[in-house]
């Protein structure tokens, strides 16, 4: 390495040395030059003096709480954006097509209006015993389980206001810390928990909720919420728990369809393997079509090979043209 004589160029070299911009040969040459070049040594010592007070790597401290708050804010905004896409709309439309799910439908609509069942501070805690199924049935939304006087408005935002017409659009969260006691067989509690599966931000809470619902008797409401979780939950662990619950009901056409969708779309191989194994028990033509696609492109060896084996058993000529390409 040629060592320049010009001071400006020497300063440039010192910066490159301090910020790891020299290769090993250049570093060795630079360090050798330091032993004989007083000007270079002086420049380096001057620059290194800054490191005494603020060593390289000294940066703003970000604590876990601050990071978590930011993460939640980002997630809310992303979910709001994605909610404008057809995904949630399709889910709601599907509920409308299924009259048996009127309870969940009402609850989800209520939640989409309220923008979440947000837990507020401990000062607002109340206890609402759920005494009878009839009483709960009259209040189908989980918001109905909270006393009206206990609502708190949080995060109010005026999204649009037209001073001429007076038209206004608001968004806000309803907050209340509420304790419920009752039985899992009661519709109110089941509704609350199925909506929480869709809406609760805390991943551990969603897993706990899934676990309890799995133990409850299976019905359309539980099935619909688990299918929604399988298709939409951001956490692979929660989706995995959902698929493990749903595989027991693979004979249900809605469940089978959701499993096919998960096999075709989920980025998590664990979820896809569970869905695949359940569907492989008794594959219908629609399922075989998905198997054919996964036999070609699944990133998971097990799924590719098992799908090929099933397709070969179904139609010995079906493996013709399989390539080794994998998407996920």
């Amino acid at each position: 390495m040629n060592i320049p004589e010009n001071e400006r160029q020497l300063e440039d070299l010192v910066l490159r040395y301090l910020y790891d911009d020299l290769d090993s040969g250049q570093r060795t040459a630079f360090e050798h030059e330091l032993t004989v070049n007083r000007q270079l040594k002086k420049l380096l010592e001057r620059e290194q003096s800054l490191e005494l007070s603020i060593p390289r790597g000294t940066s703003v401290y970000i604590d876990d709480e601050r990071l978590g708050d930011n993460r939640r804010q980002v997630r809310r905004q992303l979910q709001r954006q994605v909610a404008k896409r057809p995904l949630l709309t399709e889910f709601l439309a599907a509920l409308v097509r299924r009259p048996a799910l009127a309870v969940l439908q009402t609850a989800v609509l209520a939640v989409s209006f309220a923008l979440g069942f947000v837990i507020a501070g401990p000062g607002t805690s109340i206890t609402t015993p759920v005494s009878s199924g009839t009483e709960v049935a009259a209040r189908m939304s989980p918001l109905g389980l909270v006393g009206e006087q206990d609502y708190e408005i949080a995060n109010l935002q005026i999204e649009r206001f037209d001073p001429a017409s007076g038209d206004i659009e608001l968004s806000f969260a309803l907050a209340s810390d509420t304790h419920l006691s009752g039985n899992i067989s009661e519709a109110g509690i089941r509704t609350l928990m199925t909506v929480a599966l869709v809406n609760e931000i805390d991943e551990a809470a969603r897993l706990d909720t899934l676990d309890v619902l799995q133990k409850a008797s299976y019905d359309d409401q539980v099935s619909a919420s688990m299918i929604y979780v399988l298709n939409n939950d951001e956490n692979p662990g929660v989706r995995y728990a959902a698929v493990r619950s749903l595989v027991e009901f693979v004979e249900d056409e809605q469940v089978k369809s959701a499993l096919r969708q998960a096999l075709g779309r989920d980025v998590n191989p664990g979820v896809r393997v569970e869905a695949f194994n359940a569907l492989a028990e008794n594959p219908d033509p629609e399922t075989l079509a998905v198997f054919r696609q996964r036999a070609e492109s699944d990133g998971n060896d097990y799924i590719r090979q098992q799908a090929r084996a099933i397709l070969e058993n179904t139609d010995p000529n079906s493996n013709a043209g399989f390539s080794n390409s994998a998407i996920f």
Partner: protein
Amino acid sequence: MLRESDEELISAAQAGNIAAFERLVRPVERQMLAVAAGIARNADDADDIFQEAMISAFRSISRFNGASQFSTWLHRIVVNASLSHRRRLKRLWRHSADLHEGEEYEEQHCHGAHTPEQSMLSAELNAQLNTALATLSERERIAFVLCHQQEFRIREAAEIMEASENSIKVYLFRAREKLRNQLDPYYRPDHQPNRME
């Protein structure tokens, strides 16, 4: 369960999958927030910049083509969000001259961030560093944050800032000179810096 590759996650995020996007950014999100906090004037601005950058990254990930590393691409978005935020504030200042009065950098700095050995700067040095950082120009500050605080190499900072390596070295040199002058009392031999563990 197997861990998805970045390629799979990018592909899923490009299809609108929030969870995949979150998993992609998780390894660098603390660093991104620290970059935003290093550049911004206060903690609230830093949080806003970080959030704007994340939303912007999600919106534009379909255009990510792998020409640069994903983390480099993300940091470029944070830097651009910082610059946009700053421009918005400047427009506000024109209408409200008082807004920047009394505005202070107030972040807490530490060395060896988020490791068991990390040490917080003393309150005195931290305040002095914040004051010194406030004297840097926008680009000097960004170059310093990237190279000195986040330990990017000069060429990586040049890629993130979309500037030449020579420009980065000029920004760095000026930044260091200003900081040296401001922090001079803290590295004199007779000064005993007080670090909190």
